[in-house]
């Protein structure tokens, strides 16, 4: 139980560090002076001290929505697969619950964008709806097919089963599911081929457009939510698709897990440096590839058993 709670706290603390690490690595690769890894914390404390101003046009949704964006994601953190051997975990929560909770958070984010009645907010919300509608089927298919390979529908149990008995004979369908999930990780977190998290240019914004009107504590909450979302996806990716290191003793297992999270961050940073942002109407192509791979993984598993 202590290991379970400690893992959740660790993930929560790692979340801003991971995003700042991606930013710093990108800056190093572009020959800029990198930001500190703890920049996420600094931004958080700065925003906490700032005055919170709310537009006169908004309804009460703006006051509730930031909390409702963050809370489903915090609930999802309790359902993730375990990091150390013998730790407590929730075994019965399946792909539908996790996808549903993540889309609940996205729903409130979209409401928040619409509520301020600015042109940007509505545009950002409609784009976010467009992207997340395509992400969800692929996400359910992918996690489902991995659960099939692991022999259990619960995501936590699937992570444990995969670490204990790696499906060597299903390597091909495992690989397809991995490719699909990595595309989803990028799409759902608004990283570069889908959305650029760093610009405030109206043509490229998706995530930034929705939170343009927020200040102070509410902005801090939303930024925390987006970093928590990244850490949820990254830890799902590493515990389902790189199931190594669960059998070691507790400190080494945690070190291996953190190293895997940073490896995912490095992969995302390299991808962001090397690709240009896609045009919005090209985004369905990328997500279509992801859906095709998720489906392919499922049928390869069912028909061929490979």
């Amino acid at each position, binding site marked *: 139980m202590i290991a379970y709670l400690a893992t959740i706290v660790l993930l929560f603390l790692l979340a801003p560090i991971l995003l700042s690490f991606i930013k710093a690595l990108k800056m190093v690769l572009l020959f800029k002076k990198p930001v500190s890894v703890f920049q996420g914390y600094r931004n958080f404390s700065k925003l906490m001290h700032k005055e919170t101003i709310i537009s006169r046009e908004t309804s009460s949704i703006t006051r509730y929505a930031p909390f409702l964006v963050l809370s489903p994601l915090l609930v999802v953190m309790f359902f993730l697969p375990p990091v150390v051997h013998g730790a407590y975990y929730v075994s019965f929560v399946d792909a539908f619950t996790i996808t549903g909770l993540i889309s609940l958070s996205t729903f409130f984010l979209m409401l928040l964008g619409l509520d301020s009645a600015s042109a940007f907010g509505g545009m950002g919300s409609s784009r976010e709806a467009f992207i997340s509608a395509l992400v969800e089927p692929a996400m359910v298919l992918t996690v489902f097919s991995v659960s099939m390979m692991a022999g259990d529908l619960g995501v936590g149990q699937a992570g444990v089963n995969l670490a204990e008995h790696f499906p*060597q*004979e*299903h*390597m*091909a*369908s*495992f*690989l*397809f599911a991995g*490719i699909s999930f990595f595309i989803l990780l990028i799409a759902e977190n608004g990283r570069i081929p889908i959305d650029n998290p760093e610009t405030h240019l109206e043509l490229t914004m998706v995530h930034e457009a929705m939170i343009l009107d927020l200040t102070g504590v509410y902005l801090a909450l939303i930024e925390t939510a987006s970093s928590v979302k990244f850490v949820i996806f990254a830890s799902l990716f590493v515990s389902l698709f790189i199931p190594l290191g669960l059998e070691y003793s507790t400190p080494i297992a945690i070190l291996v897990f953190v190293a895997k999270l940073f490896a995912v961050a490095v992969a995302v940073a390299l991808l962001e440096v090397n690709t240009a942002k896609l045009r919005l109407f090209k985004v*369905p*192509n990328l997500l*279509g*590839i992801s*859906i*095709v*791979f998720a*489906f*392919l993984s499922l*049928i*390869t598993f069912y*028909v*061929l*058993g*490979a």
Partner: protein
Amino acid sequence: MIDFLIGLFLATLITALFTTRLYRLLWWYSLNSLMLGFLALFIGRELDDKAMLITGIATIIIKAIGIPFVLKNLSQKFHFVRQVIPRIKVQYAIMLIPAILVFTFYLSEPITHMIKSNSNYVAISISSLFLSLLLMIEHKNVAPKIIGFLSMENALFLLGITATEGMPMLVELGIFFDLLMAIVVINLLFHKEEMKV
């Protein structure tokens, strides 16, 4: 490991189907051939077949490095259009590709009963044959059609190494010679294309 490589083989082919740039298409073809070469090396090591090791190395040198390089040079020389948009729209391709895969997986089921070892690989190579056919169908320009033809050859090679547990060396070298002839013919086609323009 062989399952992993065969997965990458199919994955690179599917990604090539969605590509809209010529050089990117050549890159995916090159990766596809690289995976094929590694597969031949792994299967050759498993069967302890020296001839297959040689064909594996020849595949990596000729198909993964040589042919993409030559094709890139040719397309630079003749100033080809580098934007190759598939004629089948993406939203239809998303439905078509899984349909083809399901169809071919079930199609090859009677054959897979006849083969004792690695029966899955036959199904995957037949499906990649159909996918390369789709790559040929969905493009209007000559260059992507040639990539489709070459991927089809890759799929046949995969069928050869997985289903028969090693073809005779002579046959495989004959296929390579065929391929070189095909490249010469392609060169002529490119000339003709340029004369039309």
